[in-house]
C-alpha cells in the first residue's frame, strides 16, 4: 500500500509542473499590458515612463522563460503575487473567501448523499416501478436544470412565497439551505443514476445468488454485499464531483450573493485583477489534483485490484 501511495504521489510531479506552466501561459493571453492595468487600478496615469517602470517592477521586461522561472520560484515559496485591487497577497485574498465556499460545498455534499443514496438504492431494488420512473424523471431534470435558474425558482417559491428561508446573506444554517440545495441538485441527479446502475450490476453477481441461497436476510444482502460493492464507482466519482461542485459554486454564489471565492473571482475578472485570477486557477487545480489523489488512495484501500493495477 505504501508503495502504491508513493507511486501516485511521484506521478503528480509532472502534472503539477504542467499546471504551473498552463497557469503561466494563461496570463500571457491578456490582450492588454498588465502594467497598464496595474497603473489604472492604482489611479496612476499610464504614461510611457510609468509603464516602463511598472513593467520592470513586475518583471515583464524579461524574456518569457526567465519570467516563468522567476514566477515558479515565488510560487514554490507560496508567493502568488499581489492583488492589483486590494494590494494584498493574492493567496491571502482567496483564503479569506475560501471558508465560505468550503462550507457551502460541504453542506451540499451532505445533501447529495442524503438524496442520492436512498434514491439510487431503492430505484435499483424496485426497478421499473412507479418509484423508479419518478427517480428517472428526477435525474433527467436534475442533470439538465441550469443552477442559476433553479436558485431563483427556489428563492421565489420557498423564500418569497412561503417565507421559509431568508433570501440572501449568511450566518445561520437557514441561510445555507437554499444555496446548498441549488448546488447539490445536479450532482445528486448524477449520483443517483450512477448508484442505480452500479447496484443493478451487482445484483446480477453470483455472490448475491449465493448469499440468497445461504438464506441470508434480504436486508443484509443489500447492505453488506450489494451496496458495499456498488459504492466503489461512486467513491471514484467523488473527487471529480467535489472538484466540480467547488467550481460550480461560482454560479450559485453569484445567485445567492454568497461571499465565497466564486463570487470574488467574478468581480476579480471584471476588475482585471490578474494575479488573483491566476492564483485562483492554480489553487483550484491543486485542490482538484489532491482530491483525486485522496480518492485514489481510498479506492486502493477499498479494492486491492486497483492498488495492484489489475483493474484496467
Amino acid at each position, binding site marked *: 500500500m505504501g508503495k502504491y501511495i508513493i507511486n501516485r504521489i511521484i506521478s503528480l510531479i509532472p502534472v503539477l509542473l504542467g499546471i504551473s506552466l498552463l497557469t503561466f501561459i494563461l496570463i500571457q493571453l491578456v490582450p492588454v499590458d498588465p502594467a497598464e492595468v496595474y497603473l489604472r487600478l492604482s489611479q496612476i496615469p499610464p504614461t510611457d515612463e510609468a509603464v516602463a517602470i511598472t513593467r520592470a517592477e513586475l518583471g515583464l521586461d524579461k524574456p518569457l522563460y526567465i519570467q516563468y522561472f522567476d514566477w515558479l520560484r515565488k510560487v514554490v515559496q507560496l508567493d502568488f503575487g499581489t492583488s492589483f485591487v486590494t494590494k494584498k497577497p493574492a493567496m491571502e485574498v482567496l483564503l479569506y473567501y475560501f471558508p465560505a465556499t468550503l462550507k457551502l460545498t460541504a453542506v451540499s455534499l451532505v445533501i447529495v448523499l442524503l438524496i442520492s443514496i436512498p434514491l439510487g438504492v431503492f430505484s435499483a431494488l424496485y426497478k421499473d416501478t412507479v418509484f423508479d420512473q419518478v427517480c428517472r424523471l428526477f435525474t433527467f431534470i436534475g442533470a439538465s436544470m*441550469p*443552477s442559476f435558474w433553479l436558485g431563483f425558482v427556489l428563492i421565489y417559491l420557498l423564500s418569497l412565497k412561503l417565507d421559509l428561508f431568508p433570501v440572501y446573506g449568511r450566518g445561520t444554517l437557514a441561510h445555507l439551505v437554499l444555496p446548498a440545495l441549488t448546488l447539490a441538485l445536479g450532482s445528486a441527479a448524477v449520483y443517483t443514476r450512477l448508484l442505480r446502475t452500479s447496484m443493478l450490476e451487482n445484483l446480477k453477481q453470483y455472490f448475491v445468488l449465493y448469499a440468497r441461497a445461504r438464506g441470508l436476510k434480504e436486508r443484509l444482502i443489500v447492505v453488506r454485499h450489494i451496496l458495499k460493492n456498488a459504492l466503489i464507482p461512486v467513491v471514484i466519482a467523488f473527487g471529480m464531483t467535489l472538484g466540480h461542485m467547488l467550481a460550480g459554486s461560482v454560479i450559485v454564489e453569484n445567485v445567492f450573493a454568497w461571499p465565497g471565492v466564486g463570487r470574488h473571482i467574478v468581480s*476579480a475578472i471584471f476588475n482585471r485583477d490578474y494575479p488573483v485570477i491566476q492564483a485562483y486557477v492554480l489553487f483550484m487545480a491543486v485542490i482538484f489534483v489532491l482530491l483525486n489523489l485522496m480518492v485514489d488512495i481510498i479506492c486502493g484501500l477499498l479494492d486491492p485490484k486497483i492498488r495492484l493495477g489489475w483493474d484496467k
Partner: protein
Amino acid sequence: MKLQGKLKGLLQNKLTILSLTILGLVFLAGALAPVLAPNDPTLVSLESKFMSPGAQFPLGTDHLGRCILSRLMYGAMVSLGSALIVMVITIVISAIIGTLSGYAGGWVDSLLMRTCDVILAVPNLVLTLVIVGMLGPSLVNVIIAMVAVQWVWYARIIRGMVLSLKERSFILSARVAGTPPWLIIIRHIFPNIIPYIVVLATLDLGMVILHISGLSFLGLGVQPPTPEWGAMLNDAKQFLRSDPILIMYPGTMILLVVMSFNLLGDALRDVIEYHES
C-alpha cells in the same frame, strides 16, 4: 453502414421523437427569428415596460419594454448557434490533434497526451472561467475558452480509435501499397471515426449550452443588448419579487433544450454502446 441502420431505429423511440421535435422547433424559431419575430428584440421603449401578454407582445415585455417572445427567438439563435460553433471547431481541432497523436506516435504523441493530462487536471468550468477572465468578457472569448477546454476529451477518444484502426488489415494493406499517410488518414481513418465523434458531440451539446448560458448569466458571455437566455435571466433577476414570470421564460427554454439534448444523447449512447459490443 450499420450505424446508420441503428440510428434509424432510434426514430421509433417516443422520447427521442419528442426531443427531436422540441429541438427542431426551437432551432426553426431561432433560424427564422428575423422573419417570424413580432418585434425588434433590442428596441427599448420605456412606456411599454413590464407589459402583460397581449396582441402586440404575445409574452409581454421586460424591464426595458422589449418584446420577450422576440428576445427568446433571437436568443435561441445565439444559444444554439454558439453551442454548434463550439462543437464544430472542437471536433475539427480534436480530429487533427487526436489523429496526429495516434498516427504519429513517439514524442509527438507523448507531448500532446501530457498536455491533455494537464488540462484535464483542472476542473473544466474553472479553466473556462479563467480563460474568459484573461481574454475579457465576450461571446467570442467564451467560444474560444470552451473550445480550448473541450478538445482534450475528444482528442483522447479519437487517438484511441486511431490507435486501434492503425492495426487493422485494411490500413496495413494501404501502407504496404505505399499510400502516403495523409491519404490514408483522409480516405481510411476519417470516414471511420467521424460518425462516432459527431454522435459523441451531440451527447455534450446540452452541457455546452448550460456552460455558455451560465457564463452569460455571470455577465461574462453575451453582452447587452444582444438577446441570450442566460443574459435574459441575469436581467430578470432584479425583478424576482415584482415580476417573477420574467425568470420563467428563459429558464424554461434552457431546461427544455438541455433536457432534449440529454435525452437524445442518452438514446444515441445506447446505440453506440450496443453497436460496439
